[in-house]
């Protein structure tokens, strides 16, 4: 599927649409699987100017750029003019006639994309496995041997003699081995939202309809890989040969240069042909909207209740025998902001799991288990150092003209695990206070105010926040449950060491993963009848004791009822689920009350 030549041949009008349409058609069929993915094939194994795919996350959006959509070249020797197409390419032909009246200018937009942050190992690996690795790697290997042969005789950066194809046709050399890649990456900040991430980042050039893309979208991008070393060379030489002659160059700071024109060997360019927004990054579920996949949906729905029971047993085991907490943990993991009413996010369900034992790094173990089950997650130990020093909120760096990412810039449905048992005594500084405020905002309003220096900009998000703490959390939460271990404290440590962590690929774990993924995407409604009875219930409850049930409680009960129904695979609320929701809420409340009595100084 190498299409560089193709775009030259049909430079008649309308070809662009046809090309895109052709690829869309092709990709709809099973062909998409055979396209090599930038996520798991090292860059130096991919052929330049070929079609690749990339599952990514839009971290930043650069300014739109104007390029020569079509231009004329003059052959220096024959003076023959020839129209060329500049679309899907970074570099233009050698002898461009800048004064030609046939030049067509066009606009395209650049997005800076990184691999999906916080992706669990199983999610990123198994998606890679979809591509049968044998289909391209050996053949590619072969080609490169050939290349090596004739490359050896040429000096570096030699152009291919065929000037009709010089748009980035410089052959990549095997000398650009992974080792050099890693070494040079160290001085270039690739701006991953979460610390410790790695993977290729990419500049995706979008040619149409770029307004429909949003920051923090998860995408699967199909596009033409462009790694022409010319791009890097242009960037390098600026620093030496520039300033006096071309005043426009000297304006850009070196930092900006580095960000916007990083070496192509590190940050390849991808010229987008087709893209698909990902509703989720769970590799075990079909990508398309649920309704279209009735077969998959009905088979999973019928199993939901059974899987739920299994999961409940498992979580009970994990949560030291506390079934109620296990129940709430399930509800939390399938929560999802499904709508917003003016400022109010609906469907969020932040859980504060208090009373966590501090022995045997219990919270870390809990996180590792959750990480195994959800597609993306992030563990944030609320240590003083983390709070004071970590960058949670993305901030615009005007010198480099980019959005410096922060840990709260994550795709939707990421599980954020806040470990408050790691809190220690000390003082929060200004940054720390801001960070705590940001976390509070995230939990209460599901939004993050990105710092644009002169103003803030609000970005809605959809993050499942789980707070583990000893006492009540200092952060707000929708629901607090105090863990009641059924194990005597003396044996907890022993129990923990025997805690069963699911092995990576067992069928049970996969069932859990699908369960959590599907429950989150289900549609949900509530019939007039049940509405009526819910209203009646509320009025009744208030009648007995108006203080006991507030509007806030009703809010929460509605969410619990919704999540409970969904976890059972029911897409409408029935009376039973409502009663059950009420019941577990009551249980939870009594437990919280009890806890208050035990340590009377709690607020």
């Amino acid at each position: 599927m190498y299409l560089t030549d193709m775009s030259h041949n049909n430079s008649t009008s309308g070809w662009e649409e046809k090309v895109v349409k052709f690829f869309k058609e092709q990709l709809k069929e099973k062909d998409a699987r055979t396209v090599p993915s930038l996520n798991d094939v090292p860059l130096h194994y991919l052929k330049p100017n070929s079609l690749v795919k990339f599952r990514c996350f839009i971290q930043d959006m650069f300014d739109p750029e104007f390029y020569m959509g079509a231009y004329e070249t003059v052959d220096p020797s024959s003076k023959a003019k020839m129209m060329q197409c500049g679309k899907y390419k970074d570099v233009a032909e050698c002898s461009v006639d800048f004064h030609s009246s046939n030049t067509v200018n066009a606009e395209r937009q650049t997005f800076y994309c990184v691999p999906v942050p916080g992706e669990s190992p199983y999610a990123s690996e198994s998606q890679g496995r979809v591509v049968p690795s044998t289909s391209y790697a050996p053949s590619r290997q072969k080609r490169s041997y050939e290349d090596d042969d004739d490359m050896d005789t040429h000096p570096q950066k030699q152009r291919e003699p065929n000037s009709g194809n010089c748009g980035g046709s410089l052959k990549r050399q095997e000398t650009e081995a992974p080792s050099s890649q890693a070494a040079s990456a160290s001085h270039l900040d690739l701006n991953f939202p979460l610390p410790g991430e790695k993977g290729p980042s990419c500049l995706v050039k979008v040619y149409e309809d770029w307004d429909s893309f949003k920051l923090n979208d998860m995408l699967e991008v199909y596009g033409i890989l462009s790694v022409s070393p010319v791009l890097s060379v242009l960037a390098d030489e600026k620093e030496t040969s520039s300033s006096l002659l071309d005043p426009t160059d000297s304006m850009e700071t070196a930092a900006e240069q580095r960000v916007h024109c990083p070496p192509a060997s590190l940050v390849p360019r991808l010229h987008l042909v087709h893209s698909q927004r990902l509703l989720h990054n769970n590799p075990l579920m079909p990508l398309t909207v649920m309704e279209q996949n009735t077969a998959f949906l009905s088979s999973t729905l019928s199993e939901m209740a059974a899987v739920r029971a299994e999961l409940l047993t498992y979580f009970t085991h994990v949560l030291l025998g506390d079934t109620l907490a296990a129940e709430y943990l399930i509800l939390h993991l399938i929560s999802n902001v499904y709508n917003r009413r003016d400022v109010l996010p609906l469907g969020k369900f932040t859980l504060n799991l208090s009373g966590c034992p501090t022995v045997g790094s219990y919270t870390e173990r809990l996180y590792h288990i959750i990480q195994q089950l959800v597609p993306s997650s992030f563990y944030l130990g609320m240590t003083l150092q983390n709070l004071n020093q970590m960058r949670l909120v993305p901030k615009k760096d005007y010198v480099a003209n980019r959005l410096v990412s922060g840990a709260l810039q994550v795709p939707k449905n990421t599980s954020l695990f806040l470990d408050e048992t790691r809190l220690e005594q000390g003082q929060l500084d200004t940054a720390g206070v801001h960070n705590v405020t940001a976390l509070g905002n995230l939990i209460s309003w599901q939004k993050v105010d990105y710092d644009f220096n002169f103003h803030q900009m609000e970005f809605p998000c959809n993050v499942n926040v789980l707070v583990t703490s000893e006492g009540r959390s200092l952060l707000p939460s929708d629901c607090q449950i105090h863990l009641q271990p059924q194990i005597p404290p003396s044996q907890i440590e022993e129990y923990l060491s025997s805690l069963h962590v699911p092995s990576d690929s067992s069928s049970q774990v996969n069932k859990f993963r699908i369960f959590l993924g599907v429950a989150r995407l289900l549609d949900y409604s509530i019939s007039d009848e049940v509405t009526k009875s819910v209203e009646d219930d509320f009025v009744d409850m208030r009648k007995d004791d108006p203080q006991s049930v507030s509007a806030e409680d009703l809010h929460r009960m509605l969410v619990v009822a919704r999540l409970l129904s969904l976890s059972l695979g029911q897409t409408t609320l029935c009376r039973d689920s409502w009663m059950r929701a009420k019941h577990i809420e009551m249980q939870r409340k009594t437990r919280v009350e009890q806890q208050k009595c035990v340590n009377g100084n709690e607020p």
Partner: protein
Amino acid sequence: MAMPTSPGTDLLSPAAPQDTSLLSSPRPSVLPPDVDMSSPLMYGTPIRGTPARQRPDLGSVRKAPQVDLQSEQPVSDATVGSEPSGGQRLVIWGTDVNVNICKEKFQRFVQRFVDPTSTEDENAGLDLNEPLYSQKLEEISVVGDPVLNVNCRHLQSFDAELYRQLVSYPQEVIPTFDMAINDLFFDRFPDSFLEYQIQVRPYNALKTRNMRSLNPEDIDQLITISGMVIRTSQLIPEMQEAFFQCSICGASARVEVDRGRIAEPAACRHCNVSHSMALIHNRSLFSDKQMVKIQESPEDMPAGQTPHTIVVYAHNDLVDKVQPGDRINITGIYRAVPMRANPLQSSVKSVYKTHIDVIHFRKTDEKRLHGLDEDAEQKLFTEDRVQSLKELSLKPDVYERLASALAPSIYEHEDIKKGILLQLFGGSRKDFSQTGRGHFRAEVNILLCGDPGTSKSQLLQYVYNLVPRGQYTSGKGSSAVGLTAYVMKDPETRQLVLQTGALVLSDNGICCIDEFDKMSDNTRSVLHEVMEQQTLSIAKQHVILALPVSVPHRVRPSPCPSRTVSVPHRVLPSPCPLCLFLRFDLIFLMLDPQDEAYDRRLAHHLVSLYYHGEEQMEEEFLDMSVLKDYIAYARTYISPRLSEEASQALIEAYVDMRKIGSGRGMVSAYPRQLESLIRLSEAHAKVRFSERVETIDVEEAKRLHREALKQSATDPRTGFVDISILTTGMSATARKRKEEVAQALKKMIQTKARTPAMKYQQLLEELRAQSETAVTKELFDEALRALADEDYLTVTGKTVRLLA
């Protein structure tokens, strides 16, 4: 930086109208410089001793290729064939601009254009019935600042064709305008002295765009965009003209910089020695240049995207006109430069660099300094929008509609929403500074308190999201400096910088303070000045001297703090000082009414909120953007004045309010309340888009004020409204305890012998002995007072006497 007088090598060299040099300057090899000397139009040369000044904003980047005069002729004839004077029916190459016609038209515009309805502050002091720009010329002759700003909208209404040419070919038309205006000026004021010739600076091109809608078609056109300055560079000297001297014979040559390049003469033209020309820096010409980065204003951006930025080049006197953080409208020419082909490289990046050469800056927030609350022009309302807003304002129930559109997800609390709505509109600004009382506050402050879980925070969040300059802060954890401003060392530059706090940032917006009760008293006291005087003083030891910016800032926030944890007894518990409370125009209690019908409606509302029933959707007939525009429009254009009847009604209302309490020796209204009433009536008139405050406005203000008071300041004992209760507030348990003690005391007295007088101390000790819980002296006093209020006994000094 004056131009040299040798005309042939000027940037905008003297040109006949048919000459192309306006468009692209002649390269010496192609067009000998002396060719144009015979031209009748000596643009760029001194007119009566006043030198012209280069305009790098127009010509620093010229892409258009050379034009051959001969080949150009037929084109021009075809284009403007109908023009009478045969010799001048030529147009500038590539355009349809005929310089002479263009000049005449512009002169006519300057001499004749009248705009009687002009409201711009630049035109203050001018006679609006006289030709506007003629007066401005006069001004120039007096002031000596040779810049004429021309509003493109005026030009468009006067001559649409000329306007079109200006927008399409600014690079050619603006120099023509310059020529025209200078001819005109020096004809009228032959003796005036100017530093250099007048430059025309058009602004407000109707083709105003936001940054996002710029596209390749706008290249080389005149555009106006709005944005915010985020970075300015150092001053850059840009070479305009290089001066070469032959090292052998000393002959000199001037070479103009073309697109950033200098064509170095290969050989001396005088002695024909090759490679003998050397660049003399000191005799070359430079102009000032500055790179300014503009970012989209947050309002223009679609949700979920990051703001775009664009590079702007400011030249000459426009350098350093703007600072980072300024909101500006810029008018300029949009440029695209292809990436330079690198001689070492065979391929080039097929990308253009774009920037704007600025012609005119206009700060949009500058006006706020003048105290005019107009975001005008920046917030351009389309005519359709204005029409629909006006239609909306004519509806009889507009007030109710708007109120219900406010935070539709929050159930009921109609009066509170109305109060907030009036706050958003605000009163009319009054200025009594001449009589020494300074400005009167026009902003409405609101305090919300109430039971926990009554969505106060949510309401605040909504308000914060609705207004353009809203600030949201929590009383918990905010400090006085966090609200005002503080000085800190910038970690990178090591310079002291003033960091603004929430109140400053919400200038002209709304500052929402959540958890007001958790704020320390110290912090709260900061609010006094802000809320009443609407000013903010900052003093930071000696640092203030170093930072002239930190002298008192004018802020006009309307804090609407919330959430004092209220108790069912409807009395505020917090020991908030009275003076602060009085600064709130409206104090609302958000309570849980606890009755069945309400519960049912609430439940219904919540359930349908979660599972969006049909009716819910219908309710939201007014979306947030309409509401936003409505408020912005009213705030900008409507400033109602009190009518005679309205003032009478206000006086009556105030007298009534005073009367309520006067009988019992309580003060139920302060003059501040009267001011609040006025503000609220004005705000209500604004809601109706009415320029006059009528009695109905006063009625509503009265009603709302009463409602708010009734909710928060009703004395539970008497049912009377009592302002002082806000300060002496007592919690329900304390009240209950007091009543218990009072009853116990009464019983004790009754059981005792019928002595009409008792010793105070003795009574206290007896009560203490009898009661199983501790009775403090204060509590005892309270109990005695309660009994005294029942007219059961009186306390005189240390004796307690029973009454009848």
